[in-house]
C-alpha cells in the first residue's frame, strides 16, 4: 500500500480552559477524499476542535499538521474552505451582494498587488453555478432565505478551489427541504470533485449513507471507521449519553 500524506494529522490534542478539560487526548488523521461527520452533545467541544484545526485556537498540548506541515508554518490556506456555525446569520445591513461574498473566496489565493484575473472570475462563476445561485448574483445576501445563504457560504469556500471543506453545522434558519438539498450537494462535491468533507452535524442519521467515517466528540473522541455498524456501539452511547439511542433509531426510520 502506498503511503498517503494526510490532510490533517492530529496527535494527542489537549485543551484546557482555567483548569477545565474541554478536549483530551484527541488523535486522528484525515485523508484526501474522505467524508467525515462529527457528532456529539452540545458543549462537547466539536467547534473548539475544528477551530484548532484552523489555527483559531491554540491547543494546550499536542500537535497538528496540515498537509504535512506544522500548523504555524502552513501558508496555503486557500486549500481549506471553512463555513462557521453562524454563517447563515447575516447582518441585514451589511452591503454585500451574493457575488461580493463569493468573490471573497478568491482573496486567499491572490497576492496583494495582483489584480482580479480571468481565473478569479471563472472560479467565482463556477462556484456560483455549482451551488445554483448564479441567478441570485446581484441580490443582497440580507434578503436571501436561510437555504440560499447556506449555498452562498459554500460557494465562497469553493471559490478558492479547496481540497477540504470544514463545515460547522451551518443550518440556523434553514428549512428541511433546503437542508436535504444541501446534503445532496455535499455528497456530490465529495463524490464528483473529490473534495474532502469534515462536517459537524446533528443529522447523522440522514447522511449515514454518504459518510465514510464518524467522529463522536465529547471531551474525548471516538473514531468509528464503519459508522453504519458503530452508531449502535456501546462506546458511542457512553460518550453521547441518551442521544445515542435517539440517533440509532433516527437512522432506522430513515432507512425504512
Amino acid at each position: 500500500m502506498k503511503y498517503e500524506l494526510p490532510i490533517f494529522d492530529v496527535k494527542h490534542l489537549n485543551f484546557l480552559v482555567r483548569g477545565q478539560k474541554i478536549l483530551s487526548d484527541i488523535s486522528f488523521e484525515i485523508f484526501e477524499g474522505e467524508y467525515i461527520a462529527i457528532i456529539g452533545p452540545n458543549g462537547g467541544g466539536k467547534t473548539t476542535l475544528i477551530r484548532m484545526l484552523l489555527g483559531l485556537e491554540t491547543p494546550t498540548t499536542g500537535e497538528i499538521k496540515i498537509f504535512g506541515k506544522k500548523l504555524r508554518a502552513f501558508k496555503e490556506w486557500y486549500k481549506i474552505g471553512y463555513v462557521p456555525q453562524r454563517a447563515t446569520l447575516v447582518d441585514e445591513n451589511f452591503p454585500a451582494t451574493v457575488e461580493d461574498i463569493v468573490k471573497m473566496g478568491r482573496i486567499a489565493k491572490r497576492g496583494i498587488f495582483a489584480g482580479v484575473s480571468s481565473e478569479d472570475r471563472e472560479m467565482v462563476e463556477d462556484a456560483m453555478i455549482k451551488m445554483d445561485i448564479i441567478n441570485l448574483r446581484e441580490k443582497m445576501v440580507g434578503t436571501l432565505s436561510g437555504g440560499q445563504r447556506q449555498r452562498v457560504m459554500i460557494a465562497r469556500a469553493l471559490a478558492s478551489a479547496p481540497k477540504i471543506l470544514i463545515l460547522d453545522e451551518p443550518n440556523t434558519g434553514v428549512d428541511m427541504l433546503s437542508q436535504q438539498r444541501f446534503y445532496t450537494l455535499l455528497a456530490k462535491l465529495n463524490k464528483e470533485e473529490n473534495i474532502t468533507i469534515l462536517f459537524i452535524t446533528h443529522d447523522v442519521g440522514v447522511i449515514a449513507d454518504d459518510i465514510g467515517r464518524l467522529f463522536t466528540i465529547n471531551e474525548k473522541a471516538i473514531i468509528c471507521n464503519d459508522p453504519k455498524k458503530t452508531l449502535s456501539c456501546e462506546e458511542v452511547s457512553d460518550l453521547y449519553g441518551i442521544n445515542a439511542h435517539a440517533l440509532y433509531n433516527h437512522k432506522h426510520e430513515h432507512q425504512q
Partner: protein
Amino acid sequence: MSEMLSYDFMQRAFVAGLFIAILASMSGTFVVLRRYSLMSETLAHSALVGVAVGLVAGYNPLWMAVVVAIASAWLIEYLRSTFSLYSDAILAIMLSGSLAIAVIIVSLGGAFNNSLFSYLFGSILSVTDEDVQTIVIFGTLSLLFLLLFAKELYFIAYDEEVARTSGIKVKFLNFLLVTVVAIIIALSIRVVGSLLIGALMVIPTVAALQYRVGFRNTMLISLFFALFSVVFGMSLSYYYSLPSGATIVLSIIVIFIISLIINKK
C-alpha cells in the same frame, strides 16, 4: 462660484476639503462596518492634544495632531488587547481624558483664542500652504493603503475569523487601519474641526447603506455624498461666514435624512 474660487485661501480650502472628503468616506466605510464609529470620535479628541501642544510649543499643530492621534490609536489597541475592559468604556475614558489634557495645555500656555476655535469647528480661512502639503503627503499614503487593501478590509469587516482562516493577516491590517484612520482624522481637523470630523467619517456610509446595494456601489455613493457635502458646506461657510465644519456636517445630515426617507421600507 468663480468669484469664490478666485481667492487663494478658497483654492487651498477646496483642495484640502476634497482630499479629506475622499479619505474620510473611504476609511469611514470600514470604520462603520467594523463598529469603530466611537473610536473615530475618540481619536479626533486625541488629535486635539497634538494641536494644543503645537499651538503652545510653536510646532506645526497639524503634524502634532497626526503624531498624537496615531499614538492614541495604538494605545487603544494595546489596552483592548491587554486588559479585559469594555472597549467602549476605554474609548469614553480616552475621549474625555484627551479633551481634559488639551484644555489644560492650552490654558497653561495661554493659547485660548480664535486659533483653537478653528481647530474645534473647522475654518476655511485658516488652511495654509503647509497644511495643504501635509494633507496631500499623508493623505496620498493613506489612500494608497485603502485602495490596496480594500478587498481584504472588506472581508475582515464581513467575518474576521473566516478572513483569518483564508490566510489574511487580520491583526496586521487592523493595526494599519486604525493607524490610517488616526492620520485621516488628524488631517481633517483643519477643515472640519475635531468636534465634527467623526460625522464626516460615519454619516456618508450610514446614508449610503440605506440604498442597500453591494460593496462597490456603497463605497461610491458614500464618496459622492462626502464630496457633495464638503463642496456645499464650504460654499455655505464662505457666503455666510460660518465655521466650515458645522456647515459640512449639517449638509451631510440633510443627505442622510433624505436617504432615510426615500429608502423607508
